[in-house]
């Protein structure tokens, strides 16, 4: 097991080491499976977190994705980058997980989001957790298109084909996602400003972003 610990580090893995890990996984050796899982955990979780509605679902989807990886390793073409292959599996598993929700489109969501397009993007510095929380608050249909287009770089045509929706629906969902995300960032910024001013005048210092998230959580509950 000791010789495997080196793979669990997040440092880039050499091709030879990767091939050794994959060979062990093809033999269904649990030690090698764990090592591969650990090595690509952060990368895979990063993808699944963006597509999921919360961390629990992200973990579930990621494990489903890894199960596909472990049971389909014989289909992996060694000449192509493993990370890209794994990433596509995570994306496909995420999409399949939420497939039944992907056609959802609510007009009232759009209406609520309107009015923020004219705002400039504030110069906020939000943490990774804050941004993930904002993405989680998007409806699955918007979230998926946002991820595929803005992060993965798919075209609307490709998204339409992948999700079984029209190009128009893909565009519409993307704009709605964009407006809602922008609204969240603007509100977080305004809230941070208010907290900053109130901190400046009196009272102890507080973590403005953390308060912003409290605000979101309450709104989500409502």
């Amino acid at each position: 097991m000791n010789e495997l610990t080196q793979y669990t580090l997040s440092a880039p893995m050499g091709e030879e080491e990767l091939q050794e890990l994959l060979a062990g996984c093809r033999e269904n050796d649990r030690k090698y499976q764990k090592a591969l899982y650990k090595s690509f955990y952060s990368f895979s979780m990063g993808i699944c977190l963006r597509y999921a509605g919360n961390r629990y679902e992200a973990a579930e989807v990621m494990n489903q994705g890894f199960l596909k990886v472990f049971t389909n390793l014989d289909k992996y073409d060694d000449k192509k980058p493993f990370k890209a292959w794994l990433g596509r599996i995570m994306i496909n598993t995420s999409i399949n997980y939420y497939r039944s929700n992907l056609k959802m489109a609510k007009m009232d969501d759009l209406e609520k989001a309107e009015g923020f397009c004219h705002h400039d993007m504030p110069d906020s510095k939000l943490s990774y957790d804050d941004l993930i929380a904002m993405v989680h608050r998007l409806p699955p249909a918007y979230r998926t298109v946002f991820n595929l287009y803005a992060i993965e770089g798919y075209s609307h045509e490709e998204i339409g084909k992948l999700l079984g929706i029209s190009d128009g629906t893909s565009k519409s969902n993307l704009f709605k996602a964009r407006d809602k995300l922008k609204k969240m960032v603007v509100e977080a910024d305004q809230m941070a400003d208010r907290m900053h001013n109130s901190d400046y005048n009196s009272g102890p210092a507080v973590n403005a972003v953390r308060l912003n998230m409290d605000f979101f959580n309450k709104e989500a509950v409502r």
Partner: protein
Amino acid sequence: MKEPAENEVFDFFRAGLTGAENKFSDDNWDAMEQLLDGQPRKKGSIIWLYRLSAGIAATLLLATAFYFLSPVTPDINKIAKSVNSENTNKVMKTEAVAFVRQGKVLKRALLAFTTKQRTKKSHGGLGLNKVIRIPAESIGYVNSPKNDIYALMLNPALSSPAKTFVDSISPLSADVLVEVSPKEGIDSVARNKKVVKRIQGFAPKFALSVFVAPDINGVNKIANGGKTGSNFGLQFSMQLSRKLSISSGAFYAVKPYQTNTGNYTPSTQGWWKTKFGTTGKPDNVAANCEVLDIPLNINYQLFRKAGNSLSVGSGLSSYFMLRETYHFTFDDPSVNPTKFEINNRNQHLLGVVNLNATYERKVNSRIGLLIQPYLKLPVSKIGFGQVDLQSAGVAVGLSWDINSFRIK
């Protein structure tokens, strides 16, 4: 080209969301290990579920059959013989409930119930379903030329528990109920014979039923990647004779299934190549079909006692494929799945054989509770993929006897 504002928001999130470190969680690995350990059992669980539901359906059928086949008849014969040998006066001394039972066993009988026998259990076993009340100091019997009149005759001196008993069973069991006014005597029974005759003649009955049914759908074999679907709909049935009836209706069914593309033959030639080009033929297809199912069945009643009946039915269904949605996936999970959807393209007239057994329990004279295990086996190939899509399920429903008012 993207709008600047679009880039602004997306760039902001892209920068913040990519490259972050997600800390490894031992809990998630534990869940992963369970998934890896449980993988072979997972496939079996669907078959296990299917077997369980088939077992429940079979047990239900056996229990129902056992109920009907349980030896009630010898007891009645015994009672009937003893009572027949007695004279009517003797019977009069008892709180007498007499009836003629359908079938070969009794043509004419007077039966004396003891207090103990006047229970709902004895009623259930004896299976009255046509009732004549004769109060007012008389007893009597109805001679049935066709062996098919059920009559219940009461001694005037019936105690109130006995009356309660009769009142309680009559609405449950009466297809025919002739009441004689309290002052009429045994002659009135004779007068009522014509009434009885008229009502014993066959009149077609109509019933409307509403069903919901979960079922399992599979290609070639029901357990083959069996997926749970749902059905609901209305059925209209008409009785042709005492035993035979026909039924038809309209059911909306959602039939999901999963199969290897080896079992899937697109009805358009060369479709694989046109659709997938260089990617090659996909390996699996997950389908979700919305179907309008129009069945035409003939049913034969095996048993009917008291408020319970059991029938078997068979016939043909026409499938109108309202919407067919297919997700094609490849063995290599990194190749994106592809969706294909068509609406109202395929119809299969009388293309599916129906087999079913129906247990009906009358809740009252008009409403019945139905439990119907069924099988649907296609004789033509179903849908765009021309698959042998089989379904098995258990429908539950309510039936409403449309002309029950007329019989009274």
